[in-house]
């Protein structure tokens, strides 16, 4: 399996090559390339082999995600969306539903997951998209906002209100009533295919309701987002590694006052901070992934912690890296400028830093607040 990971990383490196800056500036990754990578199982590598996935552990998939994130956060974002769609179908889908959709996700079909809405960002309980039964069909109506990878997607996993709870429904993007509009000039991950989506009287077979029943919204959202948070956290590790390498290389080569700037103590301090950030995020992600791989219930909290820490470290470190490179890293077309924009988004998506801290505070109160003395 270590060989599989090495091969997967090499394939991603070969696919990205020197094209990440161009994709970022164009706001687009060639869709045929995404389909190729998807068909090789590289966009949802944690799916079991019986569905055509690579059957990677969370830890291996994390390293693959970090490797991708170090090269191109837009591609990593597409990877996160595809993986989250696969995870949601595998987690909530009935066996027939797994067989219906998961092999497609490892054969070149692309997918996105639609949670957030104009009035429901951090507070997904305010979700207003509705799903209702109409004979042997489901009818969806609503608006979704900032849906990563929707520009490329063949399938959407749409979350909405259903009966007395909530539901996740698989919706092909060519279904009448689905309108997908790319978001112009996002701050970061510019080629990740962020879109707003309109769903007007969208009719799909009743069998597209994952699990075949209404589910509690908090459980549905927490579970589906958990994969996304783990993936984003590992993606931040990639950003940190890219920043560390870029800053170290520049600090070793660039001379001022007669010596490399890395030998000036204030710049050297930045390099040490970058290493601490990268190691901290890596270790905390490794711990969370090991919780996933062992089936420990701790995975739920460890994932939020990993996302919170890694995103904040990445945002801070990217700013530090730009500071080290100064004018050499302060324009489009440079790794650290792209990292700076991409890392800021990581503090917002899949649960903002503020929301993650609230979840962690709830956990503290639930775990320690009742402690018997």
């Amino acid at each position: 399996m270590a060989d599989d990971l090495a091969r997967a990383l090499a394939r991603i490196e070969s696919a990205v090559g020197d094209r990440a800056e161009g994709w970022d500036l164009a706001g687009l990754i060639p869709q045929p390339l995404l389909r190729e990578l998807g068909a090789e199982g590289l966009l949802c590598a944690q799916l079991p082999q019986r569905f055509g996935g690579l059957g990677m552990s969370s830890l291996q998939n994390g390293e693959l995600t970090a490797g991708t994130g170090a090269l191109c956060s837009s591609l990593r974002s597409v990877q996160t969306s595809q993986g989250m769609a696969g995870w949601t179908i595998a987690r909530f889908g009935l066996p027939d539903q797994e067989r219906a959709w998961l092999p497609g996700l490892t054969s070149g079909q692309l997918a996105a997951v639609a949670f957030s809405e104009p009035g429901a960002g951090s507070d997904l309980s305010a979700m207003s998209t509705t799903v209702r039964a109409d004979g042997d069909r489901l009818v969806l109506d609503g608006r979704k906002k900032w849906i990563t990878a929707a520009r490329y997607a063949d399938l959407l996993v749409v979350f909405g209100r259903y009966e007395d709870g909530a539901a996740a429904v698989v919706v092909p993007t060519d279904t009448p009533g689905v309108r997908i509009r790319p978001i112009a000039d996002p701050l970061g991950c510019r080629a990740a295919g962020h879109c707003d989506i309109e769903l007007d009287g969208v009719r799909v077979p009743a069998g597209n309701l994952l699990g075949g029943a209404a589910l509690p919204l908090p459980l549905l959202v927490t579970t589906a987002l958990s994969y996304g948070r783990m993936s984003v956290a590992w993606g931040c590790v990639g950003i940190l590694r890219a920043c560390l390498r870029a800053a170290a290389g520049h600090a070793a080569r660039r001379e001022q006052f007669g010596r490399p700037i890395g030998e000036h103590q204030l710049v050297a301090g930045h390099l040490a901070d970058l290493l601490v950030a990268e190691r901290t995020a890596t270790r905390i992600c490794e711990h969370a992934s090991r919780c996933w791989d062992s089936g420990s219930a701790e995975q739920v909290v460890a994932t939020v912690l990993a996302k919170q820490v890694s995103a904040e470290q990445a945002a801070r470190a990217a700013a530090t890296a730009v500071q080290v490179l100064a004018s050499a890293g302060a324009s489009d077309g440079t790794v650290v400028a792209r990292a700076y924009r991409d890392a800021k988004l990581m503090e917002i998506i899949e649960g903002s830093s503020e929301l993650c801290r609230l979840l962690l505070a709830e956990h503290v109160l639930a775990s320690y607040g009742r402690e018997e003395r």
Partner: protein
Amino acid sequence: MSTVGSERTVEDTEAVQQEILNFLESRTRTTWEPDTDLFKDGGQSSLFAMELVVHLEKSFDVSIRGADLRLDNFRTVTVMTALVTRLRQAAGSQDG
């Protein structure tokens, strides 16, 4: 996705109940009665329901899907015990 099978074998309903009570005690650092509503007093986090699902699946080697994921199935230790017992019996009859 990686799912590690349980190495533990819990033989009867009483043992299932005790295992869940032990988990809750270690997780919340307090003791619980089997019929206490875990969600009613608002003392648990938004993440707690997912923690319970993951723990039950890992500890008792069951898969909780579809309508079984409704919150009422996780509200008390007694109903979780009934859910686990039913799922294990269903899995056993399929294996047999």
